[in-house]
């Protein structure tokens, strides 16, 4: 080992450059791996599958849906369907307006939800409580939940239980966004709105930027699905979560059960565009599938990193060639004293792997600034997977392993070329 350090110091310029080359390549590869490893690990974890349930007609990408389901249908499904672990009725309003202490805000969105909602979306409460049955049975919503992010922006604190927000009419949000054609803006802005007391503060599930991502629509405020909130048209959607292992059976069971339940409703017998509507059950876009789809974008970056790694392999090849060329006399002497070819190859390969490994370790350190300042524009996305400590360890170990593998593979041919020389040939300087 001491001989290795002596040789390293003797040709320090050449070896430091080689380490630098490997470090750059490994920095690129591990910066990309840091995105891939957490997603691959999350894939192995059991994840419940969610399904959207709609009623209407669909042809290709064109679809016409009819609002027919009610919160009671969701509750009934929870009781009756064996394959359903959780079910919810919900409606989202994108860009809703609220007023707090005289100041109006345009909010990313709010949701009207029923009792099954927390189980379907994995809602976590930071403070307070979810709606009680009494809250859901009223006529107008009198209580609500807000997200921690919203609480900080609007109130400056997350300690907001008991505070009141005034939820403005849906038309007001459209007017504020400039889409109020045909709306009496003055009347809408002057309407009293709905005063709602905050009873809970929630966080979105880990790794998502807001509740409702990716398929439900953003929800910063949750209101109970009371009769007035649901409205006479029941304009909302059903979402169900399958019991583990029953994902295949769920669509058929839900269609059968719901078809019988809604058979007598007027909307069920009214044709749409000349065709009879039907119940359509689709697997929802899961966060994991979104992240895996995003991985396809990482393929290009990964390919560039691999190309850089290949070039660094060429660099290690030439460095090893140069290092061995300087030591042919020493190698000749070793061979004359009984060293085998395999030992010569092993020494050269091990030395190259160590140099590359040191470069790889440097590359791991370079990966963070590279990812943070250069690749941030490519890496950031709404579906980023949280990176845990174990992911960092896996990526670091993988980075050093790749570096050492590249160094070892690159050194095999030059080492074998030198090992094949006879001791007499090797003794002559510049034989290589």
């Amino acid at each position, binding site marked *: 080992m001491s001989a290795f350090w002596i040789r390293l110091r003797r040709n320090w310029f050449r070896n430091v450059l080689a380490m630098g080359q490997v470090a750059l390549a490994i920095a*690129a590869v591990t910066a990309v791996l840091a995105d891939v490893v957490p997603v691959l690990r999350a894939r192995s974890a059991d994840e419940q599958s969610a399904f959207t349930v709609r009623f209407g007609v669909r042809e*290709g990408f064109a679809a016409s849906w009819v609002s027919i389901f009610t919160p009671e249908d969701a509750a009934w499904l929870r009781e009756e369907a064996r394959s359903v672990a959780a079910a919810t009725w919900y409606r989202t309003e994108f860009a809703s307006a609220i007023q707090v202490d005289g100041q109006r805000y345009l909010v*990313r969105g709010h949701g009207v939800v029923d009792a099954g909602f927390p189980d379907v979306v994995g809602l976590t409460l930071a403070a307070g409580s979810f709606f009680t049955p009494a809250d859901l049975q009223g006529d107008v919503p009198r209580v609500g939940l807000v997200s921690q*992010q919203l609480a900080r922006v609007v109130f400056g604190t997350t300690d907001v239980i008991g505070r009141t927000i005034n939820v403005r009419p849906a038309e007001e949000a459209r007017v504020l966004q400039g889409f109020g054609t045909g709306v009496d*803006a003055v009347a809408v802005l002057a309407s009293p709105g709905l005063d709602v007391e905050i009873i809970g503060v929630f966080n979105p599930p880990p790794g998502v930027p807001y509740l409702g991502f990716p398929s439900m629509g953003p929800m*910063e405020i949750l209101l109970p699905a009371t009769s007035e909130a649901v409205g006479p048209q029941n304009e909302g959607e059903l979402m169900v979560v399958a019991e583990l292992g029953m994902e295949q059976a769920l669509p058929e069971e839900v269609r059968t059960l719901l078809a019988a339940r809604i058979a007598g409703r007027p909307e069920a017998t009214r044709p749409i565009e000349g065709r009879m509507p039907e119940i359509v059950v689709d697997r929802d876009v899961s966060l994991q599938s979104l992240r895996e789809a995003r991985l396809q974008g990482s393929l290009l970056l990964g390919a560039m990193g691999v*190309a850089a790694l290949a070039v660094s392999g060429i*660099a290690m090849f030439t460095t090893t060639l140069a290092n061995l060329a300087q030591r042919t006399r020493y190698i000749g002497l070793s061979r004359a004293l009984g060293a085998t070819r395999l030992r010569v190859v092993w020494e050269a390969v091990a030395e190259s792997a160590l140099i590359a490994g040191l470069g790889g370790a440097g590359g791991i350190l370079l990966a963070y600034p590279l990812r943070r300042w250069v690749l941030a*524009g490519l890496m950031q996305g709404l579906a980023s997977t949280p990176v845990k400590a174990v992911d960092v360890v896996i990526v670091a170990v993988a980075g050093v392993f790749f570096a050492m593998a590249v160094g070892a593979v690159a050194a095999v041919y030059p080492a074998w070329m030198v090992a094949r020389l006879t001791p007499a040939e090797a003794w002559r300087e510049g034989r290589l």
Partner: protein
Amino acid sequence: MARSRLVMWLGVFRLSARQLQQRWLENTLIVVGIALGVGVLTTGQALVSFQTAGLVALVAQEIPDWRAVSVRPVRIDVSSQFFGQESLPAVPVSEQVLGEPVQPTLEDLLAVREEVPGVALATVEYGARSATVVAVEGAPLPGPGQPALHLQTVTPDEFAFRGLRFSAGGPFTWDDLLAGRAVLVLEESGARRLFPHLTPEEVIGRTVTEASGTTGTRWQVVGVTEPGGLLTRVMLSQGVDMVLGYVPAASQPWLAPEGGGGAPDPRSTTFNTVYFAPENEALIPQLVAGVEAYFNQKYGPGSVDVRNPQAQREEALAWLRPAVLGILVLAGLGLLIAAINILNLFTARVLRRQRIIGTSMALGATRALIFFQTAGEALFLGLVGSLLGLAVATGLIDILRAVLIQQQGDGSEIVAEIYALFRLGFDDGLLGLAAGMLVSLIFGIYPALLGSRQDPVEALRVE
């Protein structure tokens, strides 16, 4: 003198060639490394060009905000605030937005079109009406099924704005729009669907009756357009039995009572957004000023939001810049690593050749000659590697294009047409070539300087 100089340089060239030949393995590896680096960098540059110029130009055809001055009520732009890099869950509403919003009317559109210099075309954010075709020429439709009729309500200038050409007839006129006439321009495939045995010219003057719910209209065809832009073609390629048509904005004959009495005045129709296309891009700032002056005079300062399309395009490109930087840096890393190889190996080579260099200097070679010999070898290897890299880039671009098309999930013509824009452009190739040679030269300068600054006496002493 000139001849002896030429002979000297020829000699240097032959010496370099022999020395490059002696170390053929090292030199081949340097060339391969540079080729790979230039290939990846050029491919990355071509991808960036495709995204920033090719795709942006294609999308600009479909986004009027990027090509025309837009006027809309003052409003809060939620998209960047709710979903941008620094997204917020809520934004406070200013007092200005709380006032009654001013929406541009058809009368404003016509007035600006006539009075403000530099306006070539005036269009609106098109509305849409979906209905079912129930009859053509008063008789039931030939063939099975009743196709859906998707009508876009537009101004007569819309056709020129989108670059739509007519295979028969022409656009409806501003008079048609103001008179509220039920006139229709059909897209070519829709005309074939409704009138399968007629040529486009024969379709002109025919009538199409549509119905939606309890309302319906009989439209008279005045024009047939050739296939439209990308979005239109995507919409029509969904396999749905649909006919696309264009009708005058602000004329809603399905709302007018029988006999036409009491219909609302089209001039008072309001729109979410109106667009004014400039006669040429250089006139945009004056056009923006002219439009602002009109609306400020009529409704008061700051009553509407007037946007410059050049600023909108720039804003969109600014979103892309971080990603572009990431791609180029990652793509350039390979070339950087390959170039460091030149530094490494040429430095070792110069140190090995010390006696030769000392001998050359003793025999009269100048320091400049030694410098240019070494730098020239580095540049030569860079040139060969870069040229090879362009060939590598061509192959990489073909592979990447195939992968990107395959990722879209279908092999439709539209996807292939879009990705046909992703190719090795002259500028991209030139950039790759220049980057390869420049980097090789830069990293060859230190070894060249090292060799040229040696003391011949010390160099001759080296064993």
